[in-house]
Each structure stands twice: as C-alpha cells, then as structure tokens.
C-alpha cells in the first residue's frame, strides 16, 4: 500500500461538504477532491493546498448538489445518536443527575431573572405615545442646599405649549388628594385622586372600559374612575352618568371607567377628576404642587425643547423662585420611560426602582448559569477522557472522532432540553416566593410573552452549545496515542483549565457569601441602632383623614383613660414615613433670611415626650394656650448648624417663614437632638417640627408592654367610637419603621438563596473533579499503598495543588468583595465598617470545606482494594 500522507484537508470543509451535499454524489465528489488535494500537496504547502480545497468545496455548493430532503437513512442516523446519547446518560446516572440538577436550577433562576429584568425595563411602555412623553421637573438652588423635584407650577404646561414650538399637547395634574365620595349615604374614600387637565387622556392614552375618550374630560365636573374602585364604591360598573358628591368640590358626574393601572407604570391613578382647565392656566407660578408632562410632536427631538428652557425659565420662573426660595434654578426634561429606573427626585409619584439593582439581578442570573455551565463542561470533559480511552482501544479514524463529537453535542442537547422543560415545570413552585422577595406579581401566563420566550430559548441554546462544545473541541485536539499512554496529561495543559474554571466558581461563591453576610449584618445594625427616639411599644394609628383639632383632642383624652396607655401624640407623619421637605425661609445667624431645604412635620405638643426625643435647647411645645397653631417650631441640630448658629441656644427665638398662610412669621422655640426620622439610608437632614395639630392625621400611642392584645382592642374601639372611620390602620412604630428596609431584606434573602446554590454547585463540581483525578492516580496511589504509604502521606502529596487553587480563588474574591461591599454600603448614610472579619472567616471556612471535600474523595479511593485498579489496564 502506498504510503498515504497523514495530512487531511481542512476539517471544516469536509464537514461542510458532507453536510450539504447530496448523498448519492458525496462519495465521488469527495474522492475527486481528495485526489486533487493529494496532487496539490506535492507541489505546494499544506496551507495552500487546504485553501484550494476549501475553494473547490465552495464551488460545489450549488443548487443541483444540495441535499434538501433528509432521506430516511439520515433520520435513522439521528435517532441512533439519540438512542446512544440516552443510553450513555442512563449509564452514567450520577453525572446525569448532577448535571440535570445544576442545569435545571440554573435555568429556573434565569427565567425568574429574565422576567424581573424585562419587567423593570418595560415600565410605562404600554402607552402608545410613550416615546414622546416627557416630564418637566425642576431644580432649585438655595444658599446652602438644593432641591430636585418632580413637581412644577400649575401654568407650566399650558404656557410651554403656547411659547415653545414642537409640543403637541401637555397633561398636568395635581398632588395626590384624598377624596371622599358620597354614594347613596355611604362614604368611600381614596387617597389617590387627582385633578387633571383637559388633554390628559390625549397624552396618556390609558385603556378605557367604558366611556368615549374625547368626551370624558369635555365638561367640568367630570370623573374618571378605575374598574376596581368602581366595583368597591358602587358595586357595579354600569355607572356612567351617575352623579356623586365629592367632599369639598361639589357634584361630579362619572364620565368613564378605565382599566386598573398596570403594575409596571410609574403613575398609577385610580380616580381622575376634571374641573375645568383654569387650574392649569391661572397665573400662579409660585404654587409648585402640580405635575406637568408634555407630548412632543412627531419628529421633534427633546433637545429642541431643552434649548428653549433656560429662556423660558428666565421669563416666567426666575422671579417667583427668587421670591419663594431666594435662589435660582432651572427646568429639565425627563423621558417618561427613564423615570422608573433612573429618577430619584423629591415628590416622585411612586417609589422607583434603581438601575443598579436590575443590573445586579441580571448579573446574578448570568453567574448562576455560568457556574452551572462550568460544572457541565468539566464533567463532560471528564467523561470525554474516559470514553476516548474506550474508543482509543480500537483504531480511531477521523470519522470515529467526529462521531464522538456529534455524540457529545447530542447528549448536551438532550440534557439541556430536558432541563429547560424541567425548569419550566418547577417554576410554579418557586414563583410565589420569588414574587414575594422581588415585590412583583408575576404569573405563569406571562411566560408566553415573546421577549421572555426568546430570551429563554437563547439562554438554553447558549448553555447547550457551551456545554457541548467544550468537550467536543477538546476532543478534536488530541492524538490517539496520547490517550493510551498518559491519559491524565491529556490535559497537560487542559486539566488546569478545569481547575481554573472551578476556581472561578469558588470566586463567585465566595463573593456572594460575603455580600450576603454583609447585607445581613448591615440590616441588623440598622435595626438596633439608637435612632434618637423611642420606637418600642409605640403604636402608630393612621387615621388616613384629618379629623380636626377638636376631635383629635377628644380622642387623645379617651385613649389616655386606659392605664396601659402612657402617652398620646398627634402628627402628620411618623418616623419612617415619607417625610416631606421643601425650601423654607429661615433667619440666619447674621440676621438675613435664607431658603433652606428642610424636612417638616406637623405635630402637637405631645410629640416630643411620646417619642422621648431629647431637647438640647429651649422648650417643648405647650398646649394651644401658649403656642398658637403654626407659630412655634422646634428645629434639629443639623438645621441649626446649617443656618450658621454656633450653638443651639443662639437659634432660639429666630424666625422662620412657613408657607401656611399665617399672619406673621413663626419662631423657633426649641432645638432637638438629631434623630433618624428616616431610614439610615439617609443622612440626618435639617428638620423642623411645627406645632400644627389640625393637619395631623395620625396618632402615636405609647403603651406599656403588658396586656398588649387588650390594649390594642381598646384602641380600636375608641377610634371607632370617635371617628367612625373604616379605613384607619394600626401598626407598631418599630415595624412600620423597619419597613423601609424591607426591600433590602428581601434582596438579601434572594442573595442568600442563590449564594448557597452557587456554593453547592461549586463544591459538587470540585468533588467531581477530585474523584476523576483520584481515579487516574489510582494506580499510583495503590502502588504507594502497597509499598507502605498511609493515607496522610498520599493526601499531602496531592493536596497542595488544590490548596493553590483555593488560594487563587480567595486572592481574587477578596478585592472584588471589598469593592462590591463598599459600593453597596454607600447606599446607607450610616453603615457598618468594612467587615474584614467576615472576609477572613468566610475564606477560612471555604478553605476548610475544600480541604474536607478533597480529603474525603481521597479517602474513598484509598480504601478501595488495590487490585481493582491494577487490573484496569
């Protein structure tokens, strides 16, 4: 037999040819091509010959040669592959289950993350004009502070429409009002109603259930109600034309019913009232209690509007702002779709999400899938090596090698496919808890959405390809004899790749664990920190309605009649609530007045004592007798410092101008110690308490700890008696306060769950690798055993490579963790110091775990009868 050169034409070309070419033509074409190739080899180098070969293959790629219909034999071949794949998977049950488990969990997690991320990115996109809607917000600079708010003056929208070209329409609405509706002698109340401008529905085309869009806000005194409110107020939905009595505003006619607002909207109105457009056209530039949105004309860019804003501001707002805040400022536009994830202004409509969290969740999913993929790749490689050895015993030709590649792909495809189905099946189990943790309300029907399905399929494909390709490529690189002689160093360079990947898994695991512990510790700290006031055993009663000074007083007295009730106070907001701030005028140390952004709360004279806040100067509020409503103010230390007073005493008696229509300015009568009225996310800001009980709508009741149930029932009864209210809520102040950390806690839980998963997967991966390694070294180990080595000798021999692996993992994990922890802790104005001790202890534990796993695996094979391995040759 003539010596055949061992050089083959480019593999991919052969592959391609056999893929597209018709069966009946393939052999002769391939033969001819090979013959010419051989000839070429005698005249030129391999590379050039290969090039020519590839070009020729491409030249054969024509219609008459292409195989379109899979003939029967081809189908059967695939079936055969599937069968073999199946058989192999069952044969190596351990590996199969391990991979299935990992893949399923990973895929399940990724579905959840996909849903979450897509949902967060989809806010406000269901309105048909969403691309052209912008909110006009304001930025005010005062002497020592600044204010960025989502609100604007009433006439802003209509004036912009008149003076700035490019705006098609504007929509404006008021601050949220509580309206009470009288229906057939019954009162229904909703805190979220707003007065809107005439073209509201033109800009925000909310879907309607009934009513004619163009007519709904045609006439003054019209009311648009949501489906669910319609149901709860009226019991039915055939209510168009019904006239209802709106407290304080006269009679309104229901002109339409709209669908309930979607969850993924930054603005979720239930009751919209129209009372003529004068509200939005009146010349009242000083009143900033409105929200203004503009709809740009088709083809107009936001930039065109933006460049007109400075002159516009100068013309209409410069003067009023100067007067109200003694400062200056500017207007700016926000694209509506940017609001949810990127806007963090004062007076937002709904609490917004944060871009970073979406990114974090997405990364989380990516890492989990990555970790799972790595396990799969490593395991598959392990199997590949073993199997090649089996195959290598027979003669390995190019086709056999190819067969193995295909086999691996098929197996990988099969397992990935199975896992993807299982993941979907498992979803209903995990979804409720996930919804709870992520504050969402996903249901399974959403899975059918195109974007979700598409993303999921992509992830499954990538996972399958990644998992299958690694061993496949890996296989095609080696030569047969190497397999026979030194199966282990097949890797020579390859093996460390598996270890590198495994180390990567541990880095991910370690970082996640450190973050989890940090979050936990920070929240613990936040909950236990001294806030500057007493929150234990304080009951917060939210009456949701102002009941007037007199009834407040009566109620207070009634409650105090119970011996378990120690103190009662009334206030507008409780610590932990969304406390408002505004730029208020204060007298500074030098006598001049300045505008200062300040938080404010209206309270009565019992507030300070009920919460046990310390006064560092001056006095508490007295009763109505000594402190007329609104004329007395207690400031906190931060405010005093901001105003330039070197010590708190100096601030006493100084004046402050409150925008509540008083005849003269109010005075600072006391200074309180700084306390954390808001969560520890926020630094303590300038804060004042105003003695203004009439606008209070909640009570803070300090009780002693005994007979809790009795006392609570008593409170409930008294409230009913005095106010006849149906919508009040009672809670404990500390729990209400801690609700501010709710989002963090939930996120922390998600992290905890996923980090434990990652740790599990990484450890399992390591165990797999170690057992494989030990198997190969089995001969060697057992020979040593026979020669008298004991377990420890053997162990120390092999363990140092794993130690190196761990150290590498720790080396990378620590700085990454430190960086991420620092980033996250920035969210809190008051936070724990960097938890170095956690870094050390967690790393240490991880090292221990790894050493344990390695030792256990060693032990397992060590105890096996040596002859078992020696035979395996």
């Amino acid at each position, binding site marked *: *037999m*003539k010596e*055949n050169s061992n050089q*083959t034409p480019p593999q991919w070309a052969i592959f391609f040819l056999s893929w597209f070419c018709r069966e009946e*033509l393939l*052999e*002769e*074409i*391939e*033969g*001819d*091509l*090979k*013959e*010419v190739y*051989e000839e070429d080899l005698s005249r030129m180098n391999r590379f050039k010959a290969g090039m020519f070969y590839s070009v*020729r293959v491409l*030249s*054969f790629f*024509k219609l*008459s*040669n292409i195989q379109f219909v899979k003939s029967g034999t081809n189908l059967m071949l695939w079936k055969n592959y599937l069968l073999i794949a199946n058989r192999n998977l069952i044969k190596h049950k351990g590996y199969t289950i391990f991979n299935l488990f990992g893949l399923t969990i990973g895929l399940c997690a990724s579905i959840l993350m996909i849903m979450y991320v897509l949902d967060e990115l989809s806010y406000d996109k269901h309105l048909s004009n969403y691309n052209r809607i912008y909110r006009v917000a304001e930025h005010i600079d005062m002497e020592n502070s600044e204010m960025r708010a989502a609100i604007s003056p009433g006439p802003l929208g209509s004036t912009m429409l008149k003076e700035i070209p490019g705006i098609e329409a504007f929509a404006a609405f008021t601050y949220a009002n509580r309206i009470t509706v009288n229906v057939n002698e019954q009162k229904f109340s909703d805190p979220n109603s707003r007065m809107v401008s005439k073209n509201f529905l033109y800009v925000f085309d909310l879907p309607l259930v009934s009513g004619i869009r163009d007519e709904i806000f045609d006439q003054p005194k019209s009311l648009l109600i949501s489906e669910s409110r319609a149901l709860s107020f009226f019991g039915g939905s055939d209510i168009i034309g019904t006239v209802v009595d709106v407290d304080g505003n006269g009679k309104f006619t229901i002109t339409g019913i709209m669908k309930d607002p979607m969850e993924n909207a930054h603005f979720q109105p239930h009751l919209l009232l129209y009372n003529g457009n004068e509200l939005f056209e009146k010349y009242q530039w000083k009143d900033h209690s409105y929200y203004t949105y503009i709809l740009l004309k088709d083809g107009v860019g936001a930039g065109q509007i933006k460049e007109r804003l400075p002159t516009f501001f100068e013309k209409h707002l410069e003067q009023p702002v100067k007067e109200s805040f003694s400062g200056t400022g500017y207007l700016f536009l926000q694209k509506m779709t940017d609001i949810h994830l990127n806007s963090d202004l004062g007076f937002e409509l709904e609490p917004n999400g944060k871009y970073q969290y979406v990114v974090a969740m997405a990364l989380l999913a990516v890492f989990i899938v990555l970790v799972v993929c790595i396990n799969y790749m490593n395991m598959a490689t392990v199997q590949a090596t073993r199997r090649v050895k089996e195959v290598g015993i027979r003669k390995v030709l190019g086709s056999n090698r190819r067969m193995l590649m295909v086999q691996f792909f098929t197996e990988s495809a099969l397992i990935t496919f199975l896992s993807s189905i299982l993941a979907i099946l498992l979803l209903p189990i995990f979804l409720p808890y996930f919804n709870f943790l992520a504050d969402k309300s996903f249901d399974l029907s959403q899975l059918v959405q195109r974007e979700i399905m598409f993303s999921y399929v992509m992830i499954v494909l990538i996972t399958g390809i990644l998992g299958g390709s690694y061993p496949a490529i890996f296989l095609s690189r080696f030569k047969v004899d190497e397999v026979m002689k030194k199966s282990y160093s097949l890797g020579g360079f390859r093996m460390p790749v598996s270890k590198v990947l495994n180390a990567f898994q541990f880095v991910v695991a370690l970082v996640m664990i450190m973050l989890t512990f940090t979050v936990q510790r920070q929240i613990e700290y936040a909950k236990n920190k001294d806030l500057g006031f007493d929150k234990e055993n304080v009951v917060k009663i939210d009456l949701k309605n102002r009941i007037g000074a007199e009834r407040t007083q009566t109620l207070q007295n009634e409650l105090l009649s119970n011996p378990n009730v120690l103190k009662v106070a009334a206030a507008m907001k409780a610590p932990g609530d969304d406390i408002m701030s505004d730029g208020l005028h204060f007298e500074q140390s030098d006598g001049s007045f300045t505008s200062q952004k300040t938080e404010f709360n209206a309270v009565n004279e019992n507030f300070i004592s009920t919460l046990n806040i310390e006064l560092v100067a001056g006095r508490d509020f007295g009763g109505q007798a000594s402190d007329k409503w609104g004329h007395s103010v207690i400031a906190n230390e931060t405010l005093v410092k901001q105003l330039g007073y070197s010590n708190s005493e100096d601030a006493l008696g100084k004046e402050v101008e409150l925008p509540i229509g008083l005849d003269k300015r109010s005075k600072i009568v006391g200074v309180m110690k700084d306390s954390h009225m808001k969560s520890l996310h926020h630094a303590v800001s300038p804060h004042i308490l105003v003695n203004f009980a009439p606008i209070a709508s909640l009570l803070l009741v300090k009780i002693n700890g005994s007979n809790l149930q009795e006392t609570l029932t008593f409170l409930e009864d008294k409230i009913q008696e005095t106010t006849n209210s149906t919508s009040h809520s009672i809670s404990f102040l500390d729990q209400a306060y801690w609700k501010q950390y709710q989002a963090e806690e939930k996120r922390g839980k998600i992290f905890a769950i996923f980090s434990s998963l990652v740790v599990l997967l990484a450890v399992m991966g390591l165990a797999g690798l170690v057992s494989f390694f030990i198997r190969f070294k089995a001969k060697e180990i057992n020979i040593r055993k026979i020669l008298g080595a004991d377990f420890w000798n053997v162990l120390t021999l092999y363990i140092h490579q794993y130690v190196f692996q761990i150290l590498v993992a720790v080396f990378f994990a620590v700085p990454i963790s430190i960086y991420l922890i620092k980033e996250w802790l920035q969210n809190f104005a008051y936070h724990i110091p960097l938890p170095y001790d956690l870094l050390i202890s967690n790393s240490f534990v991880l090292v221990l775990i790894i050493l344990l796993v390695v030792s256990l695996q060693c032990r397992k094979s060590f105890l096996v009868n040596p002859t078992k391995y020696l035979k395996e040759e």
Partner: protein
Amino acid sequence: MKGTYLGEFEEIVLLSIGILDGNAYGVSVQKELGDQLGRRVTLSALHTAMHRLEKKGFLESWLGDATKERGGKRKRLFTVTALGRDALENSRSTREKLWQSMPALSAQKIQS
C-alpha cells in the same frame, strides 16, 4: 436525431470521455481537457456537466475503485453511450455542412 443538441462545453467533455476510453472520471477528464486543449475547467462545472449528460442519456456511469489517494472513496467512471456517439456525429456533421456552405475559405479550411 432530434433533441440531441450539444453545447460546446458538453461536446468537448463528451469527446474527452471518449478519448479516455473507460478511464474517464472527474479528475482525469479535467486533466485531459487541460492537456489537450489548454482549457481550465473547475471540477464542479465538469461534474455538473457530466451528470447532466448522463441524464440526457449520452453517458453512462458506474462506481469504480477506491484508492488511498481518494481517502477511500470510490470514483465514478463514465463512458459514452450509443446515443452519445450519435449526438457527437450529429454535431460533427452539422458543423461540416456549415463549413462546406461557406464560400471563399472552404477550400483552404478543409485541410485543418
């Protein structure tokens, strides 16, 4: 014989196959055309032509030996059928007729 139209390329392919006398397959025909006529044809064009000719009935083929040079693949060998010979004859006579009808040059050209 009607329907035995031969394109120019098809004609020379057929002729080459005839010349190779039982040893005609893709590579050899390509070589023949190159040697005899200095004509470079791609294997794929040749291949397509030969199969088309077979479909027309001018060639018949069978699978021959496999050799090491061919990576173990057999070669497809072609021979001209009787129909093919007819078509070639037809083509040749058509051309000769036309040549004879040509006025001035016909006498000189008969020799070449």
